[in-house]
Structure formats: structure tokens, C-alpha cells
């Protein structure tokens, strides 16, 4: 429901209590985790205060209320993702566990020696290491898709790597380190054409513009609540029903079981087969509230705002020396990654922190990308809906002073 009031980042910022406690905070570390709006904090608290019980099979009204809250969250999240069915939404701790679930369950059941898993060099470690481990266990092979000189995925190399031995292609919707947006539509189509499944790491992409899963055409999609204005401790693995039906359980325990005896155990249907034990109930409710909150805004307007902040920031950088924007001319989400000539990004970040500007430095869990770019690390500024033009201008000023201090 886009609202008719004109967009105002300042008004959005007012919905985030953290800025009441830190009024001068310029928080540009949104790709690491976002702040939480009141609507999310209240939804979680309301759950605990009015409907807290364990879910499923409860013979009391509080248990029904909890179950309805949790399964209602699943249904609403499925709708926000435009998934074909709520049962395709599995609750996990976050993106990392979601990808581990896919790798352990699908991978160990379906990968054979010589099968190839193709991963872009842009990937976050969460979309690399689980596949390396499952490859070790099954004899499959992990191959990287190399990058072009500008840090985007080399499309010719990708196409030439696509063979029928490819069983899965892993792609990020948006690089968490540089913001680069791979051309998902043609890449997914090409992967499907050789019969490969496609895992999309949506950890960053979903926060900026969202996703339409039925339009996307991928097989797996993973994201985290805490990067989407939602709570920590919850995330989602989405997969098509037909695919989930063929996947064995991974973690085991209560809720995912049909019948247990010491002679043998049978397992429940998806999604329950993949949700062993008590799930993050209050957090799922909080995540649904975060997605409802986002849906209360026009997503395109939010994304345009975030991209405009990035533009403004990068335009301002031109005035400053010895700074380079990584993948500057590539299609990117609202993330700016910087490298400095002769300066350590950590030192820059320390000075910025002194001026109240929170950015992140390091390899951002994207080791192979940094190796490919020939960098030890970079400094990342990432924008969210509550960031303002004033944030950008203050950051530019702080950066200018920092460069003087470090000259």
C-alpha cells in the first residue's frame, strides 16, 4: 500500500528508537545489520506479552494464539515474497543457516562425485563455504565464476562454464561488499537451460527493492531478518514445494517428526520437516512485522531514495583525493565500497567513528572478491531507508577532515 504522503527520510528515521538514544549517530553500516522500527519491536513484545506459548499441538487458547501468530507470519512473509505457497517458507536463524540447510539437505542427498557447483566470485562466505563442505563430503567440485576487470561477473566465462555437469549455480542478488547487482534474469535462465538449480543469496537484495519469487525463477532463495529491519535470530530459506518434497531432513528433533521409536523414525512434511525443535517464534512474528512495515511504504520510492544517497555520496567523493569507488560504473545497490591510496581503511573508519559515522572495513566476508580485486580490505558505506541527505553530507565532511588528519 504505497502511501499518498510524500516520502520523508526524516519521518522514517523517527520510527527508529535507536536514533532517539543516539541522536547524532550516522549509521552507514546497514549491510551488516539494520536498525529496527518501533513496529517491529512492538510486534515482538506484543507477542511475548499476549500470545506467548509453544506452537503446534497446543490444547489451549494461548497455544492457538501463538500458533496462529507464527503460521500467520509464515503466510504473510510468503505473500510479501510472492511465493506460490506458505509451505515454501522455512524459518531458519538467518541467511547462513538457510544456505547450510540447502547444502546439507539437498546437497548431500543429490550431489554425486564429479557434479559441479558454480559460484560467483562475488559471493559472501555464507554462499561459498557450505558448498565447499558439501563438495568435500560428496565428491562434487566447487568452481568459481571469475570477475571482469570492473568487479562484475564475467558473463562470457559464466556461459562457457555452464555444462550439464553443473548441478547448482550460487549467485548473490546484490554483493554485500561492493553492491554489484548481477544480471540475475539471464543468468538464472542460462543455468536452468543446462538443468542446474539456482540458489540466490538475497541477504542484501531483499532489503533494497525486495523480490518476486515467482518472477525470479530461482530454486532456492535465502535471507536474514536482521538485515531487513527485523529481529536477529530469524531468516528464511525459500524453495519450491516440489524441491522441498524431495529433500531429506537435516536437523532432527521435535516438530519435524511423524513418529519416533528406537526401531525407526518417520518425518513430517515440509515445512515442518525442516524446522526441528522450537523455532524462533517471536522473531518470525517480528520478521513478518518488518515486511509488513516495508510494504506500508512504496518500495520503489525507498530504493530510489537509497540510490540517490549513494549518488550524492559518490558525487561528493570526487572532491577528495586518493579515494577509489569499487565497481564504480557497474549496476549497484545502495552500497559504496572504497579503497584508499596509501591509507588503511581501518584508520579512516576509526576517524569517522570519532565523528559519529559508523561504516565497516575489512573484507566483509567476501574474501575471494577481495583477492580478485587485489585488495586486503575496503571501507563500506551502506544506505538504508532512514538515512538522510544530511547523513551523507556530514559523512563527506568527516571524510575530508579524516583525510587531512591522516595526510
Amino acid at each position, binding site marked *: 500500500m504505497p502511501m499518498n504522503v510524500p516520502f520523508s527520510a526524516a519521518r522514517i528515521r523517527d520510527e527508529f528508537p535507536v536514533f532517539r538514544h543516539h541522536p547524532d549517530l550516522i549509521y552507514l553500516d546497514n549491510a551488516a545489520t539494520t536498525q529496527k522500527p518501533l513496529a517491529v519491536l512492538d510486534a515482538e513484545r506484543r507477542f511475548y506479552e499476549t500470545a506467548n506459548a509453544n506452537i503446534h*499441538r*497446543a*490444547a489451549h487458547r494461548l497455544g492457538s494464539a501463538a*500458533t496462529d501468530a507464527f*503460521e500467520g507470519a509464515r503466510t504473510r512473509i510468503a505473500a510479501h515474497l510472492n511465493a506460490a505457497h506458505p509451505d515454501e517458507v522455512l524459518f531458519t536463524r538467518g541467511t547462513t543457516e538457510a544456505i547450510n540447510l540447502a547444502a546439507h539437505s539437498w546437497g548431500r542427498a543429490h550431489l554425486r562425485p564429479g557434479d559441479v557447483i558454480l559460484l560467483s566470485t562475488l559471493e559472501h562466505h555464507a554462499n561459498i563455504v557450505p558448498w565447499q563442505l558439501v563438495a568435500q563430503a560428496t565428491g562434487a567440485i566447487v568452481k568459481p565464476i571469475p570477475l571482469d576487470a570492473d568487479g562484475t561477473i564475467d558473463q562470457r566465462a559464466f556461459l562457457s562454464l555452464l555444462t550439464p555437469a553443473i548441478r547448482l549455480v550460487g549467485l548473490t542478488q546484490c554483493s554485500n561488499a561492493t553492491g554489484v547487482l548481477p544480471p540475475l534474469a539471464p543468468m538464472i535462465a542460462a543455468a536452468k537451460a543446462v538443468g542446474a538449480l539456482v540458489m540466490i543469496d538475497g541477504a542484501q537484495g531483499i532489503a533494497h527493492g525486495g523480490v518476486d519469487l515467482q518472477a525470479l525463477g530461482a530454486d532456492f532463495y535465502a535471507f536474514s531478518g536482521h538485515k531487513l529491519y527485523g529481529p536477529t535470530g530469524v531468516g528464511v530459506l525459500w524453495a519450491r514445494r516440489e524441491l522441498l518434497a524431495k529433500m531429506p531432513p537435516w536437523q532432527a528433533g521435535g516438530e519435524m517428526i511423524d513418529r519416533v521409536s528406537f526401531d525407526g523414525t518417520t518425518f513430517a512434511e515440509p515445512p515442518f520437516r525442516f524446522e526441528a525443535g522450537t523455532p524462533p517464534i517471536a522473531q518470525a512474528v517480528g520478521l513478518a512485522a518488518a515486511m509488513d512495515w516495508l510494504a506500508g511504504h512504496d518500495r520503489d520510492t525507498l530504493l530510489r531514495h537509497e540510490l540517490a544517497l549513494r549518488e550524492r555520496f559518490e558525487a561528493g567523493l570526487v572532491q577528495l583525493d586518493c579515494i577509489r569507488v569499487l565497481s564504480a560504473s557497474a549496476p549497484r545497490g545502495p552500497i559504496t565500497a572504497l579503497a584508499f591510496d596509501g591509507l588503511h581503511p581501518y584508520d579512516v573508519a576509526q576517524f569517522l567513528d570519532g565523528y559519529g559515522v559508523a561504516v565497516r572495513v575489512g573484507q566483509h566476508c567476501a574474501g575471494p572478491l577481495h583477492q580478485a580485486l587485489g585488495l586486503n580490505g575496503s571501507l563500506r558505506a551502506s544506505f538504508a531507508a532512514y538515512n538522510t541527505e544530511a547523513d551523507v553530507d556530514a559523512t563527506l565532511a568527516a571524510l575530508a577532515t579524516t583525510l587531512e588528519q591522516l595526510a
Partner: protein
Amino acid sequence: MSSYPPPFDHPFGTRIDRDALAQRLEAAAGWEAKNRLLVQLARELPPLPDALRTDEHRVAGCESTAWLVIGRQEGRLLAAADSDSRIVKGLLALLLTAYHGHTPAELAGFDFEAWLVSLGLQRFLTTSRGNGLRAMSRMIREAIAEFSH
């Protein structure tokens, strides 16, 4: 699919119709009265013969055990059911009332779950794994869809 009579000889859906039940439920104010009424309905539903209390007719995933037998005669859906829980058996009486002895045409547009909600019984529909009532109403709707072809 089995044939009529036995095990399809029970009053729900034929001698007792939806309106009659709705009236009784509306008269039952509060949970205690509703629970009591469900137990009463369970008494009015004859037990399913042992020969039909088989795994084939068993509905998995209920907190209690339930059995559901679906048949068809002269274009009408036939259904019988039982449970080892009286409350569940009372709910099954509601299910039978809604479907048993009816033609697909009569059932067009009928939404069992909405009906339960209107009777104040949404609590028994709680989205839950293998929820018995939902699962059974779905099984009946699938049987109807099948013989409408």
C-alpha cells in the same frame, strides 16, 4: 469407497442439519457449554465399526486419533467418522453435518472453515501441523472434486 447403509447410518447431515446445529451452538454460550455440546454430539454419533477403524481410514496428525470414511451414492457424498476423543468426535459430527448426504451442487460455495469460525469454533482450526479438522475437510472437498468430473 464403501456403500450405504452401514457405516453411513448416522443422523448428521440428514436428520440433523447445519441450521439445527448452528442454533444449538449459538445457545451454548461460553467455552464450557460449547465443550459440553461437542461431547453431547459425540454421543449422538454412532461408533464406526471396528472393521473400518483401520490405518486406511485413519487421519494422521491429530492430537487424538480420528477415522474418516468417504463414500458416494446417487450423486451424494457420504461420510462417516469417529475419534477416540469425544471433543474431536463432536467436531467430526459438525463436519458430517456439513457434508454427509449432500450433492456437489448443494455444497457449491460452502466453506466449512468459515462456518466453524461463524460458530465461534475457530480455536479448533488453529493452523497447526496436520490439523485434523482442516485436513479432513480438505479430504472431503477433494473427494467431491473427484466425483464432480
